[in-house]
């Protein structure tokens, strides 16, 4: 029936045309900052906080570990200061813990090792999609924060790092729910050895219920703040500032 064939052809070509213009529309929307705001992570954050509560991330057995745990992001900071510290095996390295705390304090690696420790075999999930399972040993962030006593107005914990991308320093931040979670540790050991440089020596964050980019490496300073607005680009982390990645990376 020629009449209906014509209709079908017209329909198909207009569908194709419509599809192409819809795609162009998606691209235009993607470039609009206000659209990115609408597509925010607020709902994910709120929903997961309710659903997940204080649940623990799965811990694995030694047999389930990745035979080869790949590195990612920066594998060695370029800063002279950090390289000097690395040259003496971080003997002179100190972790500064300050900001909205009652007793700001710095810790040597030996002091951190003498604090309560936790070892966990957990899965590292990169935002790109891959996963690796490794064993981490460190001091619970909660134990460090208890030493310096958080001020009541502290709402976020910021991790300042020694590495940078094109001169912009890496940093990350988490809320207090994750900061005081028992599996959130400042790790100085990996797979039964000292934390390798490629994985963030001398100290990296493990925040097991979030994606890999939250697990800041090469940590130099832990700062308690009330707002993330004044730090870096104001969105709470290097990738959050640089590429509009979610600050809350539970998904």
């Amino acid at each position, binding site marked *: 029936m020629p009449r209906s064939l014509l209709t079908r052809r017209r*329909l198909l070509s207009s569908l194709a045309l419509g599809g192409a213009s819809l795609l162009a529309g*998606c691209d235009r929307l993607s470039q609009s900052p206000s659209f990115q705001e609408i597509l925010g992570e607020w709902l994910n954050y709120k929903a*997961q906080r309710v659903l997940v509560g204080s649940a623990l991330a799965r811990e694995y057995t030694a047999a*389930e570990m990745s035979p080869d745990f790949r590195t990612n992001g920066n594998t060695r900071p370029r800063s002279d200061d950090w390289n000097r510290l690395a040259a003496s095996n971080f003997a002179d390295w100190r972790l500064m813990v300050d900001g909205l705390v009652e007793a700001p304090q710095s810790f040597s690696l030996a002091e951190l090792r003498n604090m309560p420790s936790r070892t966990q075999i957990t*899965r590292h999930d*990169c935002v790109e999609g891959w996963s690796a399972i490794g064993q981490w040993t460190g001091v619970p962030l909660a134990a460090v924060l208890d030493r310096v006593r958080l001020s009541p107005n502290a709402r976020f914990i910021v991790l300042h790092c020694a590495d940078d991308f094109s001169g912009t320093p890496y940093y990350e931040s988490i809320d207090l729910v994750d900061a005081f979670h028992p599996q959130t540790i400042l790790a100085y050991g990996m797979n039964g050895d000292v934390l390798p440089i490629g994985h963030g020596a001398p100290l990296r964050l493990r925040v097991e*219920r979030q994606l890999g980019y939250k697990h800041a490496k090469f940590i130099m300073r832990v700062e308690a703040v009330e707002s993330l607005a004044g730090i870096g680009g104001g969105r709470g982390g290097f990738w959050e500032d640089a590429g509009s990645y979610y600050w809350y990376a*539970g998904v």
Partner: protein
Amino acid sequence: MPDIEYGAAFPKTSAYDQRIVFRHRLSTRLWHWTNAVVFFVMLMSGLMIFNAHPRLYWGQYGANPDPAWLEIGSDGQHGFLRIGELTIDTTGVLGLWSDASGLHARAFPSWATIPSWYDLALSRHWHLTFAWLFAGGILLYGVWSVLNGHLRRDLAPRPAELKPGHLLADIKAHATLSFPRGEAARNYNTLQKLAYLAVLGVLLPVMILAGLAMSPAMDAAWPWLLDLFGGRQSARSIHFIAAFLLVLFVVVHLTMVVLAGPVNEIRSMITGRYRLPKETP
């Protein structure tokens, strides 16, 4: 429904001896068009997310040093899709392709992804925002379809329809592209019912759960997700396979719409009113 009953004959309005019946409820139509948008956005933003690490694994872990069962890549000269031992040259479509901005060594091409350029963060915004639309839609539709009898009356096959003889006849009817006419066209046919139920009851739940299993926070909340799929990387693989099966479903669905009479079919999904095809003499 004010003046017409569900399935009631509509007064003759055309010169043809064909009756117009009310075929699709408002809830079905709303969900259909929500999904039409959600499907394409989630598929294409999903392909962009896949582009960030175009390798699939089985098990709890899986990264570059580990063996991938599926990989899309490029050796610089050719694009390839590798599934197990089988490698297919996909230059121009997958792995290595060109668009207006030049040659790209990337898994899925720009015309198939949202956004069209490489941007993992943005594709995640699209994917995870439309996931909420999808979740809200399927929840409302699911509850409503049970309450208003859509599931029982229109989707669940009757015992007689599942008899081998009937199934065989339906398969034959599909294979010869002879579509139901007259009164028989008023209801979904058996294969159609089974396809819809498979998507609603199996594919979409698997898709949703495998998606949730990729969230490290959800894995903490519901550790059974990891056991259900055999690990996060298995869940990622299954999510990808389920997406591929959904694409197949949509291709078949659209083909059937075109073959069965696109104007009548699309109108029925917009207004609810469907013109019963004339009985063959």
